[in-house]
């Protein structure tokens, strides 16, 4: 690494900034985040980097990489691209676990089918480290952290498969609260796995946590999709077998004894965090509007999350319910449109209620 390659990285990032400058975002915080990144980049660009020591140079290469990754996600989270309704549901769940105002949920759309993942680059601690460095060096800091979720471009408006994003949010919460890591540390008295067996143990804990996290909100619907895309998949070093994952979630939903659930809740309790428990409420059958082909009236966030399970039930029984007379493509579109409009109406109603309270005050 030398100054000229650092300069090359600066110019490349300058190009990315010039293209991102006209982005229109779905909320003001993303614009604010962009402005802060731009100010930090400006300060680095105009610094005397020719005099940097090797250590400083490598720190700045890392900083530019951080800025670049943030921009990538912002570019994919503009008003017309971001799956706004789905992100709203994730934000509702997020707020139950951490202070959501510290975060911006950003998405990156992948061209690969079934690529749902969370890029866990930023922990609370690493963000603090970066901000301390920026404050010390440039008197600048970032106000928000990005939660970076990757989902397939082709499925960004497919609300049935989007239940997987609750699982990805589970990975974020695990990463943020260090649940699986603390379990590992407690058992081995060191932070990192050293061999295949330990990697497997740690990775499987992470997957079970994310599965249980999702099941709190969307019941077994995430596993129904899992069973479709990874049917009978045997266990690997990274993931438990599909059968084991389904069994653990079923134990949770049936309120039966489950070692994984107990372990996770023990760590959560020690952290004064909420515990894993059912966080959706079923809507009474007589109150279900979807069968009249109109959006579902949702009274609470718990009902909002239940919408996904409800619609999975409708989809799975679509040969025998009110959807039976429609062609399969129409059924798919109807279910997705009904979910989107139901969430959208709920957001409008919530926003209206907040605004009118402010007005009356």
């Amino acid at each position, binding site marked *: 690494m030398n100054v000229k390659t650092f300069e090359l990285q600066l110019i490349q990032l300058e190009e990315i900034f010039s293209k991102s400058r006209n982005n229109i975002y779905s909320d003001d915080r993303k614009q604010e985040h962009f402005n802060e990144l731009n100010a930090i980049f400006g300060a680095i660009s105009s610094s005397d980097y020719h005099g940097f020591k090797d250590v400083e140079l490598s*720190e700045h290469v890392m900083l530019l990489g951080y800025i670049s990754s943030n921009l990538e996600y912002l570019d994919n989270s503009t008003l017309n691209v971001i799956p706004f309704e789905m992100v709203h549901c994730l934000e509702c769940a997020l707020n139950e676990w951490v202070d959501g105002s510290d975060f911006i949920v950003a998405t990156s759309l992948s061209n690969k089918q079934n690529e749902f993942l969370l890029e866990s680059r*930023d*922990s609370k601690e*690493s963000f603090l480290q970066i901000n301390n460095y920026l*404050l010390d060096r440039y008197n600048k800091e970032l106000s928000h952290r990005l939660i970076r979720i990757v989902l397939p471009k082709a499925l960004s408006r497919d609300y049935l498969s989007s239940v997987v994003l609750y699982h990805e949010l589970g990975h974020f919460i695990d990463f943020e*609260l*260090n649940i699986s890591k603390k379990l590992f*540390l407690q058992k081995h008295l060191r932070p990192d796995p050293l061999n295949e067996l330990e990697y497997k143990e740690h990775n499987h804990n992470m997957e079970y946590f994310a599965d249980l996290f999702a099941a709190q909100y969307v019941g077994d619907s995430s596993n129904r999709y899992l069973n479709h895309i990874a049917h009978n998949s045997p266990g690997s070093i990274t993931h438990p077998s599909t059968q084991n994952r389904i069994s653990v979630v079923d134990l949770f939903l049936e309120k039966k004894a489950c070692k994984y659930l107990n372990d996770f809740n023990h760590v959560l309790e020690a*952290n004064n965090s909420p515990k894993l428990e059912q966080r959706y409420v079923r809507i009474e059958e007589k109150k279900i509007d979807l069968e009249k082909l109109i959006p579902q009236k949702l009274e609470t966030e718990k009902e909002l999350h239940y919408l996904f399970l409800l619609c999975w039930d409708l989809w799975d029984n679509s040969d025998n319910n009110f959807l039976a007379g429609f062609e399969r493509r129409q059924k798919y579109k109807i279910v997705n449109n009904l979910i989107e409009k139901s969430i959208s109406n709920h957001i409008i109603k919530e926003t209206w209620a907040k605004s009118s309270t402010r007005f009356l005050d």
Partner: protein
Amino acid sequence: MYLAKTNSSREQYDLYLNVLNSLVEGNDSPSKPNIDTAISDAIKVVKGEKDILTISNSNYFLVSTLIGSAKEFLVSIKVNSYNREIYSGIISSLNQKR
């Protein structure tokens, strides 16, 4: 694949090491209070005075790294405020295990 995936733990580790080196050189850093708290927490854990599950998430990486790599040195620390010698001892312990 042209590049290995960036390892954020490595970046975190390097940043902490740079700050520790800077503290050894006698400089101040806004990260010093956080580092000192992490050292105190790690000492309490290895001495059995603190439940490992209650480590703060604000400095979990550093505390767990110290527990995993500098246990013997942490046990030997008898003071509550830390100076260049302590930071230097921690760097040596980390370098031995890395």
